């Protein structure tokens, strides 16, 4: 999900991929029940505006003699600008998403970003406010993302998905911004990797360094 395609919402993205699969000549299987739906899912929802180098799409295609290399080649040809399929493999056993690593690029000078990272790591608690249609909530982002590090001027941070929830990358960026003296400004966010583990692997807390 590169360039402007990062502004597609999760649902728009699913729709775009369904149409790309149909253009590529594949039929997506439908679920059972009163209101059959295409069997397709993206492993981890992505905030609008967040770019991504790693998305896990799973989809059930009608027919059983699909060659992964062929599926990939055809899908590459039919995806719109900025949506770039990278690999394709037969589905393995079910897995849980346990977290994702993000790159947060701030416009502020590298030294300021470095200092904010250090201050963040040293804090006991980093609370940001999350507002949603359901109301406002206070989130301690450090519980989910204890260890941001600075690499080539940008922050790399792994955010865990725990049994009771997770933090959003822009919330971590806001917490970093709060730790910097003059502020860091808004971050350009890229998801670098989605982490999975065998089903049932999610835990209640991450170890803090």
């Amino acid at each position, binding site marked *: 999900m590169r360039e*402007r395609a990062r502004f597609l919402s999760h649902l*728009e993205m699913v729709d775009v991929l369904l149409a790309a699969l149909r253009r590529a000549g594949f039929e997506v299987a439908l679920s059972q029940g009163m209101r059959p739906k295409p069997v397709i899912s993206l492993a981890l929802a992505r905030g609008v505006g967040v770019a991504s180098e790693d998305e896990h799409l799973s989809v059930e295609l009608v027919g059983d003699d699909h060659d992964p290399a062929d599926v990939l080649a055809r899908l590459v040809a039919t995806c*719109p600008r900025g949506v770039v399929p990278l690999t394709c493999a037969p589905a393995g056993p079910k897995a849980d998403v346990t977290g994702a690593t993000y790159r947060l690029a701030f416009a502020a000078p590298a030294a300021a970003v470095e200092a904010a990272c250090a201050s963040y790591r040293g804090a006991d608690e980093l609370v940001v406010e999350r507002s949603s249609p359901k109301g406002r909530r206070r989130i301690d982002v450090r519980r989910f993302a204890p260890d941001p590090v600075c690499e080539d001027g940008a922050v790399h941070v792994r955010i865990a998905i725990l049994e009771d929830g997770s933090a959003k990358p822009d919330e971590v960026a806001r917490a970093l911004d709060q730790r910097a003296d003059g502020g860091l400004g808004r971050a350009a966010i890229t998801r670098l990797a989605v982490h999975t583990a065998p089903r049932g692997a999610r835990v209640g807390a991450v170890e803090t360094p």
Partner: protein
Amino acid sequence: MEQHDLQARIEDLLGSVEKPSRYIGGEVNEAVKPDAGVRVALAYPDAYEVGISNQALQILYGLVNDRTAAAAERVYCPWPDMADAMRREGVPLFTLETWRPVRDCDLLGVTLQAELTYSNVLELIDLAGIPLHAAARGQGDPIVLAGGPSASNPMPLARFVDAFFMGEAEEGMERIVAILEATPDRAERLRRLAELPFLYLPERGEEPVERAIFADFAIDTAPTRPVVPYASAIFSRASVEVMRGCTRGCRFCHAGTWYRPVRERPVEDVVRAGLEQLGCTGYDELSLTSLATSDYSGVERAIREIKAAKPDLHLSLPSNRVDTGPVALSAAANSRQRSITLAPEAATQRMRDIICKTITDEMIERAIDAAFGAGYTSLKMYFMIGLPLETFEEVQGIVDLGFRAREIGRRHHGDNGRFTVHVSASNFVPKPHTPFQWDGMAPPEQLRVKQDYLRRALRGRQLKLSLHDVRTSMLEGAIGRGDAITGDVLEAAWRAGARFDAWTEHHREDAWRDAFRAAGRDLEAEATRERDPLDPLPWDHVRSGVSKEFLLDEWYRSRAERATGDCRWDGCTDCGACVGPVRNRLVEA
């Protein structure tokens, strides 16, 4: 502002607005020609999800990009949150394909599909940083061209638009692009454009201008590579226009005049275009569009051949005649569809004779019976209220027909059956170039009384009613038949904050009322005003091909409650639309 700087600033804005996908472009089948010498911005003056669903603009987009060296790029009206942010940050209106400023294009072409988008036309011009008044523009400013059905009365927008395209743009657009390519000089371009018979340039005075008719519609191949919208579009389906024009002669209908005569596309062409489109878009639904698809003489063969190639396809036939045949056709086209629409428009025989809707009570009942018999569980019926010569009987007729439909539905699905009769009643708004162009709208209080009555009377299980906002209908009526002074009103209303007038949440009745008052007019008086057939009309210089005598004759026949036959089957009534090679062209006898 440098191009990469503009891109970065647009990206910044997108982080904080609703539905940023409205502005990003990059959809499948988008055409990008970054090195084209001539660039044309094609704009729809409403939100992305409405504009991208418009077939006419998709046709023009494909035509300019495929058949000329010029680049056509798209623009939709930024939603108020984005427009405000753009003004605040000094970001000019940009095209979706290359994110370049519209102001740097050679032409800004705006399609006028509805009067309630006029304030958005001003919004687009202003956001682009183009002087609002055509008279204030000069070398370096794009030429602002407006086309589409509502251009048939250009006067309300005459001050803001350099040239109006009258009629069907397929052939004319290539000639316009050729002029843009021939010279970069703005004045010279305008001089040459003024020579085209289908262009009206307000600065040249009210010279007669003729509607362009695409005579080759039936011969030329249908376009097959539409841009595939992101999920939010109001229509996400492939569509092939099977026929242009309709000669049924409904007297309220603008399209019934503006697209005469009837030209049908060969069935082979329809089938090929439909299948190709499905392949290159990934849609799972195909719509065979026209003003009345069940009138297309090749419809049965087209359905058969498409279904033979794609048995599971959702095939839809919008705009059907009210009769058993079309209901059976719809059922055959899409066996999974559970809902069907019928448009009797009026519920009594008298009113249908007045509006020239040549269907009988019996045909309507048979169609309802056939629909429920075919397994449909949702029946939508469209009516109008506030029509000329309407009495309370007609409104009662809508109630009676609603209940009658429910009774028929219960016969098929049982008294407690799960089905709905959905009655929709819109407000009649007189349109230029129609036999009812001289009639006024019903006064708002009368429309409200009738709506209240419908609300009270059409209640019960399995019944649903939807009504149109009287305020927006009155506005549509007040500006649609307007003149140059309406342009003053429009500008004042837009300056006071009017935009997205068709969206209830943005409709600014106060701004419009004040603007009419400032121009010495009253909104309701304008909408309800009857015109004297002897007085000139603001759009008299626009020649639709259908003569004013014919329209007036039809108006008289309406007062005599007499319908007129369809010239495809009942003989020519000499409306004037057929000239030379332009005539009704049916594919099957």
